[in-house]
Structures are given as structure tokens and as C-alpha cells.
């Protein structure tokens, strides 16, 4: 009988050694060469570990501060945010807690304030850098693909709020803090050029725009940044879902009088059929 070689999971991230009595259990796990349970535990912060997982090398102090600051800024978008609203909608109906997070992930993945917006905005950063003329050209003639995609078309300048008035205070506060912490050139440039960009985009900078700039400055790829952004916004979705689960559906908006049906056949049909 010929021996067939086992298929394997190939990874640069993770290595394990087996327990002596069980090949299906690890005795040690190494992330990028660091012993996770034998060394990192107790020494590394969650944000540093996140960095290590994505980058496979430790962050500098500034990188840690920037990612930490962004993580705090994003952790709870608040109960009016679409993704948190989705999670609470799971909570009020007594849905599974996992479904609350799945709902927040699905809704928070989109092109308006979600993960897809981060992906697209970082592509813009990659092409435009800190050249205001390049941004002008890009925002005035955004790239469009001829081929259909599963993602709905981007309908606004990514990183900006199409429904905004002026740049909200929290967005300015986060940008100011991150720009002052930065040792790179992206965030300070955004801080200096925010208003010029807002005129070009005809809308104010959004939190997603600050997040994209930060993750670009930290050299996360668009793909990494998209998924990390979605992850970082989940804590708020989780706690608001749990809270609404306790409070219940009857103290949560149903928008009872908020819907108008324009082509209602009315109850007449029913009577006719009786």
C-alpha cells in the first residue's frame, strides 16, 4: 500500500509542537517565533499581539500608540451606527449572540462607513499619497470598473460622509490625537489638508477616513486594513446587543408610524376574496 502524504495547512504565522500524549494537542504555540503561552502571556498587550499577528514582528512604541488610539476610537461606534443597530436588532429578538456579531460584521462591512470603505480609501491613498492634485483628480474622477461586482458601486468619496454637514468633533479629536502621535507623513498631512480635501469631496471627513489614513500610515494593506477595521468595531456591537437583549424589544424603536406603502392594495381585496 502506497503511503499518501498528509495535506497540510501552510502558514508563516503559527507553529506548534505536540503534547507527548496527544498529537492533536499543542504543547507550545509560536506566533512569528514567539512562544505565545510560555513567553508573550503577561508581557504583551492585546494591541501589540494584534500587531504581531498581522505583521509578524513587534510594533515600535509609536506604532503601538497609534493602533491603540485607533482601536479605542473605533471600539464603539455607538447605538445609532448601522452595524451596532444590526447587532441590537439581534439582541432585542433574543437571537443567538453569535448572530449579533455576524449582523454587525455584515452591516459593518459595507462601503458607507464600513470595511469596504477602508479598503477603497487605502487604495486611494496608495495612488494619491500626500499629493493634493492627485487627490483632486481621483475624487473628481473616481475609478469605475466595467465588470459587475458583488459590492454595490461606491456612491460617495470614500473616507468622507456623504450625509454630513461639517466634520464632527470626535472625528477631529481622533485625527488631532493620531496626527500628533504620528511620526509618519500621512496623518499630519491629512490634519493639514482636511479642509481642502473636504471641499474636493464636497463632504466632511468621516471616522472611516481617519481610520484608513492611520492604517495606511501603519502600512497595513487594503485587505488587512479592511478586516482589522471590521474587527475593531465589534466590541460596541457586542455590548449594545447584550444590553438590548435585557431591555427587550418593546423599548427599542420599531418605527411603528415610520413606513408608508405607496402601492397598498388595501384590505378591500381580502373582503372580496371572503
Amino acid at each position, binding site marked *: 500500500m502506497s503511503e499518501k502524504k498528509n495535506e497540510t495547512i501552510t502558514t508563516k504565522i503559527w507553529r506548534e509542537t*505536540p503534547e507527548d500524549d496527544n498529537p492533536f494537542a499543542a504543547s507550545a504555540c509560536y506566533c512569528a517565533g514567539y512562544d505565545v503561552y510560555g513567553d508573550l502571556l503577561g508581557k504583551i498587550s492585546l494591541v501589540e499581539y494584534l500587531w504581531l499577528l498581522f505583521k509578524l514582528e513587534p510594533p515600535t512604541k509609536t506604532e503601538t500608540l497609534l493602533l491603540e488610539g485607533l482601536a479605542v476610537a473605533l471600539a464603539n461606534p455607538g447605538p445609532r451606527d448601522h452595524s451596532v443597530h444590526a447587532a441590537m436588532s439581534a439582541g432585542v429578538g433574543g437571537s443567538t449572540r453569535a448572530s449579533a456579531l455576524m449582523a454587525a460584521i455584515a452591516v459593518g462591512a459595507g462601503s458607507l462607513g464600513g470595511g469596504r470603505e477602508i479598503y477603497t480609501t487605502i487604495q486611494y491613498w496608495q495612488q494619491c499619497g500626500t499629493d493634493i492634485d492627485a487627490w483632486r483628480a481621483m475624487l473628481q474622477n473616481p475609478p469605475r470598473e466595467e465588470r459587475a461586482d458583488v459590492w454595490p458601486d461606491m456612491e460617495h468619496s470614500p473616507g468622507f460622509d456623504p450625509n454630513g454637514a461639517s466634520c464632527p468633533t470626535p472625528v477631529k479629536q481622533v485625527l488631532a490625537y493620531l496626527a500628533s502621535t504620528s511620526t509618519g507623513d500621512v496623518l499630519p498631512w491629512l490634519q493639514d489638508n482636511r479642509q481642502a480635501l473636504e471641499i474636493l469631496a464636497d463632504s466632511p471627513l468621516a471616522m472611516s477616513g481617519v481610520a484608513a489614513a492611520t492604517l495606511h500610515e501603519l502600512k497595513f494593506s487594503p485587505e488587512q486594513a479592511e478586516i482589522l477595521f471590521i474587527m475593531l468595531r465589534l466590541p460596541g456591537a457586542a455590548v449594545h446587543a447584550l444590553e438590548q437583549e435585557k431591555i427587550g424589544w418593546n423599548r427599542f424603536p420599531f418605527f411603528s408610524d415610520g413606513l408608508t406603502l405607496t*402601492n397598498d*392594495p388595501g384590505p378591500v381585496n381580502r373582503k372580496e376574496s371572503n
Partner: protein
Amino acid sequence: MKGPELLKHYEDNWVTDMGAWFPGERVVLRGKDVFTELNNHTWMEYLVYAVTGRESPKIARLMEALWSITTSYPDPRLWNNRIAALAGTARSTGVLAIAAATSVSEAQIYGLKPIKGATDLLYRMYAKKSAGHSIDRLIQEELKQYRSVYGYGRPIIKADERVEPLMQFARSIDAADGRYITLAFEIEDYLKNSRLKYQINIAAVAGGLVADQGLTANEFYHLATLCFSAGMFPCYLDAKESEGCFFPLRTERINYIGSNSINKWGGNNGDL
């Protein structure tokens, strides 16, 4: 209207012709009373009406055949089905299993992206071919721009065993010889004989058949969203019976290709 003014306009104000529930009384979908006007529709006819606004038993029948013949494979090795099986063996719920597996079905190399992409391709190619362009040139341009052609070629195996059974069904309902399905096979003729040796896969066949029924790429995408689900349930049910036993992996099945150094956090790095 834009900005806060636009949002104020929509505050507690959703105006729609899609549908609504009148609590304790009735339900309306796209202007029809569900209890009296849509009550004899099959579920698939109801779905077709919900997505397209069209009442078409023929499209519903075609869609049902697409779902059952071509997309409901009960094999837990397939990546989307594997999510359902993993949820089963990890003792998660059935709904979480199917919801997660369904979301994974929106994949690049199989599933919803090729389904939508192939239908879109046929519409674009047909318009350009009608304007006088050759298939040769159109496909070359597509390959140059996107490096792939949705609906042609397949991971794991070249030939697609689903093509003939689906075409057989399409012939049985007189839906097999429209202009888009004809174009789909013309493109295959070209690609099969090119250096790529791509054969048609089910996405292009399905795309051609539904385009011939007048469905847009977007409509087909929505109608196909749940098309893999019937294959997922058996995978979940099966794996749920054996807690933790679905394709277990021993530590040596991790093929680590990273740096072999052993590092100390905050200290000097050493060698393995």
C-alpha cells in the same frame, strides 16, 4: 437635498412600494396581498416575484433546477459546505452554520461572484459582439484587463459535470436555445481551443439561461444567494453527530514556513 437635510427628510419616514406588514391584518409584497393574491405561489415563485417583480413560473422552475441540480452538492469538503460541517462538529447552531456558509458562498473562485460575473460577462459580450466585435478580440481584452473570464475554467477539475444535466433540463422547458446561452458556448469554443484550454463551467451556462429569460446579473445574483443551502444542511447534520471529529488536524499538519528563529518578547532573538 443633502447632508442633515436629507437625513431629516428620512427620519421616521420610509416610503416604499416593496411591501409591508399591517399588524394583525395583512401583508403586502410589491403591491399584492400575500394572503389573497400570492397565496398559491410556490416559494420559488414568491422569491422571483420578491426580487424581480415578475410573476414567472418558468423562471421559478429554471431557478429551482439550477439550485437542485447544480449548486446543492452535499460534500463537506467544498469550502462553503465545510463551514456548515465545522459548525456541526463544533456544536454550533444550524442557523449559524447555514448563515455563515451562505456568506462564504460569495467567493471569487466559485459561487456568487462567478454567478454574477458570468451573467454580466454575457450581457457585455453580446452587446459588443452585436456592435461588430469578434469574440476573439473581446475575450483577449477581458483576459488582459481581468486575467480571468467568469464562467470558464474551474478549480480542482477542468470539465464541469453539471453542464449537460442542466442543459437537458433547459431543453425540457424549452429554454435551451436563446441568444445568450448560444453565446456562452461560442465563448467556450474559443477558450477551449486557446492556450488556456478553459471549458465552460456552470456559472456561464446558468448565466446564459437566465439572461435568455430576461433576468439581469443583479437579479440572478439575488435569486442565487441561497442556492447552495440545500447542500449545506446534510453537511451540518452529518458532522454534528461526531463532536470534534470532522477532519481533525494533528499539530504536524501545520506546515510552518516562517522564520525559524525563537524570539523573546522584549529581548534578543535566538535561533531555533
